[in-house]
């Protein structure tokens, strides 16, 4: 599975925009990313959106076994 980390999270946490992780679901992904970059889990919920195979996903428990790509991008708030 391809994990793509968009700015600012690539530079802020991981030093790369591609990660090699095979998570069971998005909760698992957050845990694994937090192990790579401590502190990531604390900001994941308030600041990060996850797009799974091109669709923004709000169900973090959804299994990712069939997913090909997860993109981490800044969560955008409206007004």
């Amino acid at each position: 599975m391809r994990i793509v980390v968009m700015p600012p999270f690539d530079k802020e946490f991981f030093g790369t925009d591609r990660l090699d992780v095979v998570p069971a679901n998005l909760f698992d992904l957050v845990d694994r990313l937090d192990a790579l970059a401590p502190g990531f889990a604390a900001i994941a919920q308030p600041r990060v959106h996850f797009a799974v195979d091109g669709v923004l996903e709000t169900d973090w428990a959804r299994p990712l076994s069939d997913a090909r790509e997860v993109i981490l991008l800044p969560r955008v708030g409206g007004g």
Partner: protein
Amino acid sequence: MNAPTKFDGAKPAYRHVGTRPVRPDGVDKVTGKALYGTDFKAPGMLWGAVLRSPHPHARILSIDARKAEALPGVHAVATGKDFPTLQSLVMHVGEGASDIVDVARNCLALDKVLYEGHAVAAVAAVTPEIAREALALIAVEYEELPFVLGLEDALAPDAPLLHDDVFTKGVEPKPDKPSNASMRVEMGSGDVEAALATAAVVASGRYTMEPVHQGYIEPHACVASWNADGQAQIWCSSQGHFAVRALTASVLAIPQADIRVTPLEIGGGFGGKTTIYLEPVAMILSRKSGRPVRLAMTREEVFRATGPAPGAVIDVRIGAAEDGTLLAADVEFKYHSGAYPAVDAGAGVASAIGHYRIPAARVVGTEVLCNRPAAKAYRAPGAPQVNFAVESAIDELAVRLGLDPIELRLKNASGEGDPQTSGVPWGKIGWTQCLEAAKAHPHWSAPLGENQGRGIAGGYWGNYGGPSTVVVSLAEDGSFVVATGSPDIGGSRASMAIMAAEVLEVPYEQVRCVVADTASIGYSMVTGGSRTTFATGKATVEAATQVRQLLCERAARMWNVPAEAVEWREGTMHCISGEKAGTSISVARIAPMVAHMGGPVSCVSAINANGWLPGFGLHICDVEVDPETGHVAIVRYTAVQDVGTAIHPDYVEGQVQGGAVQGIGWALNETYIYDHKGRLDNPGFLDYRMPVASDLPMVAAVLVEVPNPDHPYGVKGVGEVPIVPPLAAVANAIHAATGKRLKSLPMAPDRVFAALHGCA
């Protein structure tokens, strides 16, 4: 037949969806009965007032409130020291991520004031007059510090630092020195410089603007009552009473369940009421005094101390081939964050150029701290500013290439499956349909008069879904109540009633909708992000569907037939097979009996709504420029927007018109003006000039319906898109009328006159 189904494209014939019934809250509002924030009073209530900093940047050396506390009639004084010690915690409540330490400090400063108007202390007294008198008795000793207001000034190496613990996020290597640049976001792909070098034409320029305010008519106001047993109530107007609860509980370090927040009517928010300013201060005063405390801002306080939209400096270069094909874009912007880190850069990057297919692009956004009020969300936060630059440059390309501006946009328009700037593909969007609708609209081909010009601009906003809870209950007489946790700002009570009535196949008037307090319904995110009709609507449809199914099951039990033998039609249950075939019972007749067949009928839907889609719009603006004064009059304005499905078209049109008018105000008149001491010079509607009805023609709203397949009735968010295009649409119209391209907002008469007469 009108039960919601997975929407597959063709618009079904609806019973209620798309109709325009009278809004249920209308009578209260037009007769003055509606209770807004400042209308609410509690028995024994004290009146609060807030002391604010006269300095844009200063250290608080001491606060002596003894004289104020001794004034007869004063019951409590609060300062920043009354807040508990807080650890940094980033929360997503409201419409963005905020650190609760910053939220608390913004409510009452602790060691430094960061902008003129920053709250320093507060008083509760038996009358408002005594409260104000007491404020004057509080002695605050300040050490004034150098301040900075401008974006580039704040980034200078010797700029005064607002925070010594803010290090720029999103850069490598990680900085080892604090900075006023709190965040940098860069996205893009391709070799931009190489692609620009091959372009036949490159439109470039620097675009600027100062912050603008959301301009809601109702000032912030609340009443708080904190009992000795630790339980509290807050009555306030906001865009999200659950956000008020979460933030207030967090900054006071108390359980959320100890606070019950009751929403009052809201007189406008536009993003600016997704946070808190007064509520924890009123809570502290209430705890100290043992009485309910009311706090309300004056208009001047609203301007000086509540979040504006960021000002901006935007540098743009966009290159196109001879035939108008866009080749490359380079956009770099800086946004004011004000006193605390904000989150608009990511939104600005996402909203800059995604409406076009551009093979090589780079978009960079930087958030900049400065001694102004902390920036807050304002309708499509972060999008209008950068769109102003991008859509002005697109217009310049069309002019220089001799191409029709709609055709140029059509040639390059993103469609379903095309990648956004982030790489995530667009879903079922209606951008091309908007462009086609604009091209076909009579406005586009109407003749123009002397000194008149026509401009267009397009834009988009991502919208959102998110958590919502809805309860649909059957009353004993067969009417229905829909309870939501979403404050009604744009007519959502009517929209929810329409959707529930559609599912239940009953008259609209048989369904009433209320906004329940935080103790009476499950969590719901704010009314913001253009999410409510989509997300809360989805929950309403789901809960109403459950009610319908449950009532069919009850009728089946009553008739002693299988559940599948009962069919719901026109709000009536019909037995269609077996011994009771042909028997029917209406909702009104079964309602009094449901308690005897399993209990009351009340169904809840608590969802985190997925499947939202962005909205796109194209605005056409005609202006007439007075060459002698520089005054710009809007003579005709048409806003075309993909709205998915309009549940209540009146309110959808109202959103489109309201957003357009706010954008026009941003374009022509609105701006914060500071003096040389860092003090706001125009904190009132007399000098902060918002458009009024007599300034503008009727804004024509053209609703393009490209339904969202992931909503039962095809809904897309509509409230934010319409503020995005007007800035450039007006500027492009002025260019068409005068040949002058204005790149600084507002395009007030003095600037237009200077451009026309070469005295800039």
